[in-house]
């Protein structure tokens, strides 16, 4: 069963704490993505990873960094979380070719207080 798995599903952190969001996929997809979703703003791209250690900023990378040391695993890190980073974070993966659709994870709901 092909899927993208995100951990944790829910997370509460205090402002200034570090946050690690993890994402795994079992489809050997080259490309992985991190998005955040806020009401009225749709899906905003944070980072793209084209393969191991090959990452690129998306539209809103400030305050975030990523790590991809294995093709099947892609992490999003928030160093010193801020309250405006409260959001729902989605990981996705796809094949690196035109017309390929995304498989999304179930999302991580992060609350920074």
């Amino acid at each position: 069963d092909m899927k993208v798995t995100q951990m944790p599903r829910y997370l509460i952190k205090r402002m200034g704490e570090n946050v690690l969001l993890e994402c795994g996929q079992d489809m050997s997809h080259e490309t992985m993505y991190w998005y955040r979703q806020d009401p009225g703003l749709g899906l905003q791209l944070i980072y793209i990873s084209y393969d191991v250690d090959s990452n690129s900023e998306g539209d809103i990378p400030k305050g975030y960094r990523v790590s991809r040391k294995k093709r099947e695993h892609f992490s999003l890190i928030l160093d010193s979380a801020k309250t405006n980073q409260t959001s729902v974070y989605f990981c996705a993966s796809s094949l690196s070719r035109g017309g390929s659709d995304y498989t999304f994870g179930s999302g991580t709901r992060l609350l920074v207080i």
Partner: protein
Amino acid sequence: GDSVTQTEGLVTLTKGLPVMLNCTYQTTYSPFLFWYVQHLNEAPKLLLKSSTDNKRTEHQGFYATLHKSSSSFHLQKSSVQLSDSALYFCALSEPSSSGSWQLIFGSGTQLTVMP
């Protein structure tokens, strides 16, 4: 650059009525369009996709036709159900600077179906 426009942020309908959610796009490449559906507290899931001009694509009662002449890919259903209440995203596939591909998403349309 490439873009996707969804003009309606919120659509409210009574069960059994038809619906059309608008999607237009801009691209310099051969277009490949997608519709994703996201139910409350769930992940977005692919609903349908197309790259063929003037050919209707259908799935789960929804259908869309890519019209390159008008740069449109509107989503339609002839009779909405309560379970169709969800957030719908239109997306366009485009090449990234690295040579890979990525989806450009519209802002989404929230469809609410009333009894």
